[in-house]
């Protein structure tokens, strides 16, 4: 039996190590939108956090929406820990109780010492969600195919001076806002007008004027491709995708920032996450001043912390939605309006499309 002793000791040791490491190092599943965006998060958040804590991040992709989260919560089998969602979904999921409320006062102060609550831009902290980035829906055109240069949102709806097919996202969001802005409604009044039945009719009437010229897109990758193929000459798109097409793929596109509709992406935790403490640690880490500034190295989405702005690389600054030169006539997506009216307006929008 003596010969067995060293072996069994070694085995026990191995088990002990195994338990110890599994006790201290945890794996969490972080879900985001894929592509260049997830890559920027892996570089700016996941890798440094893994290095710091020894924990592991499993990155998964999804296509937005709360369907999977709801299904997991209802089935009582939550496998996702942190999910990158749009603001309206963050609010809605919180209202429906399928997201964990977050202890926001534990968020670290900004690098300049300002309290977290003051450091985050207004509206980017909510009961169940912590903001990360500001992104924008803008429109862009192909410089080689346009005789005149569009400068304002009105030009998107002007098929006489700017002929050609247009690309728009197949959703009422942004499109209805833009239709009103192009019809002469002041940016500040857009949601007020849209809250009235007359306003909605007015927006659809304006969309009617270009309906025949529109090619509708659904995935973020489509509009830069459609512009590149010459399928459309002008199209709405996410500013990060356009940045990629213009700066990386050197496409002859130009962005019109007038009337940009900006929105934020936030971290949420599905109700019943098994790794809540670790996940919350990850969220706190990934939304500190440095990490948010780092992310802007990789993609042209703006940080939601004010203290991160000065740390963003100089060469990236002009591409940020929040850069002063771009932020002249912005409209913040009104999540409350869309949480209330999204169902009905989408229904009407779909009926309008099919009609």
């Amino acid at each position: 039996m003596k010969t067995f002793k060293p072996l069994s000791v070694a085995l026990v040791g191995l088990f002990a190590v195994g338990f110890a490491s599994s006790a201290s190092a945890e794996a969490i599943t972080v879900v985001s939108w894929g592509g260049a965006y997830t890559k920027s998060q892996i570089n700016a958040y996941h890798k440094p956090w893994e290095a710091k804590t020894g924990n592991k991040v499993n990155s998964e992709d999804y296509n937005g929406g709360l369907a999977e989260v709801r299904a997991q919560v209802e089935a009582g089998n939550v496998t996702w820990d942190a999910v990158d969602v749009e603001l309206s979904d963050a609010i809605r999921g919180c209202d429906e109780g399928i997201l964990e409320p977050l202890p926001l006062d534990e968020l670290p102060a900004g690098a300049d010492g300002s309290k977290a609550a003051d450091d985050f831009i207004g509206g980017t902290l909510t009961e169940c969600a912590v903001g990360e980035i500001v992104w924008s829906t803008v429109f862009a055109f192909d410089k080689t195919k346009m005789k005149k240069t569009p400068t304002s949102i009105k030009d998107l709806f002007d098929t006489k001076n700017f002929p050609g097919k247009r690309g728009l996202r197949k959703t009422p969001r942004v499109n209805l806002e833009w239709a009103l802005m192009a019809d002469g409604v002041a940016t500040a009044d857009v949601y007020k007008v849209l809250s009235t039945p007359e306003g909605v009719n007015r927006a659809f009437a304006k969309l009617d004027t270009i309906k025949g010229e529109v090619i509708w897109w659904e995935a973020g990758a489509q509009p830069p491709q459609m512009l590149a193929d010459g399928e459309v000459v002008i199209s709405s798109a996410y500013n990060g995708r356009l940045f990629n097409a213009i700066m990386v793929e050197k496409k002859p596109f130009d962005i019109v920032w007038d009337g940009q509709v900006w929105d934020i992406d936030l971290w949420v935790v599905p109700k019943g996450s098994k790794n809540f403490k670790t996940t919350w640690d990850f969220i706190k880490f990934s939304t500190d001043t440095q990490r948010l500034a780092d992310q802007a190295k990789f993609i042209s989405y703006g940080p939601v912390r004010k203290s991160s702005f000065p740390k963003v690389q100089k060469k990236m600054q002009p591409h940020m939605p929040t850069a002063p030169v771009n932020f002249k006539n912005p409209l913040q997506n009104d999540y409350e309006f869309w949480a209330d009216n999204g169902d009905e307006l989408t229904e009407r929008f779909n009926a309008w499309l099919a009609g």
Partner: protein
Amino acid sequence: MAVVSDGAGMLRTADGVPLKQALARATRVNKIKAFLLVAPLLVFILITFIVPILDMMTRSVSSPEVVDALPKTIAELVKWDGTDLPPEAAFAAMAAEMSDKKNKFYLGKAAARLNFQKSGFRSLFNKSQRKIKRVKQGPFKDAFAKIDKRWAQSATWNIIRNASGRYTDVHYLNAIDMNRDPAGEIAAQPKIKRIYVTLFERTIYVSFGVTILCLILAYPISYLLATLPLKTSNLLMILVLLPFWTSLLVRTTAWIVLLQANGVLNDLFVFFGIVNDENRIRMIYNMTGSLIAMTHILMPFMVLPLYSVMKTISPTYMRAARSLGANPFTAFVRVYMPQTVPGIGAGSILVFILAIGYYITPALVGGQSGQLISNLIEYHMKKSLNWGLAAALGGLLLIGILVLYWLYNRIVGIDKMKFG
């Protein structure tokens, strides 16, 4: 075992056991063995197919959200006659239930459910929850009216009352462009919101078109496959199956590259002067695109059953017909084609059913006129989270397909169907 017949005419084995019983005992073990063999598949189908379908079907008629969140309020509302405003007791119950912190989860679901019925309920509930907590005593009727004037309208309360049943027909009504008005009567949706009937019609008509196109194109291919020498037909079969092994998205994207305004096909047309550069043909982001891409993708489902049936039709039938005096055309129409009917039936039903459920391809190449009902089901499953309506739309599709299947059985006979 010797068989003995007793006086009553019952056959018994030599041991006196009734013959039937002995037989049952002897076959039982085999039956159990056979069942154990299929049990894994049975369980698999039950879990992955039957249960989800039943679950979705249940969702299409159930609406427990409101009554789960506001049981006491509903109890009061049921007593109310529906005119003017509900009694103070209802307001008080609502205030108590909204202030209950543990109830938040259910209130959120109820608000979402009511918001499908009438926009604004979501924010109305949120606002009211926040504010009513601070009101310590009644009358709550005035307190609610102060929070939002909608609480002072009987329509608001009617909507809540109408949505209070555990079971509802509202999803099915919505799915056929109907609704209940505040008084609870069934009425057509306003014109600007009608969409599902149009899309159902379009879906059926597109699926039918795709089926016909597949049949017309697949018939000669299958005939070639079945009659060519093995070496050539194998090559052809690989060509038919090749798209089968390619990802759906890749195939769809390939069609975009081919068909778009500046795509390969249009470039060729311009090059050969068939159309001029300004009038390139629109073949994608419309119905044409949907039809072409879906026909291509579903073609193998038509070719395979046709091929498998044609393969079994001996060439002697055609020879016999020719020798009996029929010219090649008559021989084909009178003798060959009727024998391929089982394949035509199987292929058509397969393609039609698959086409009816297609959504990725129409979403990518269909544009606004190529949207099908499945796109809306996907929207309600993934985006609006109105699973009840999604389930009702799916339920109607399921019923439609079952009717089709029944008709097919009546006209052609399911037993005649051959998938290969």
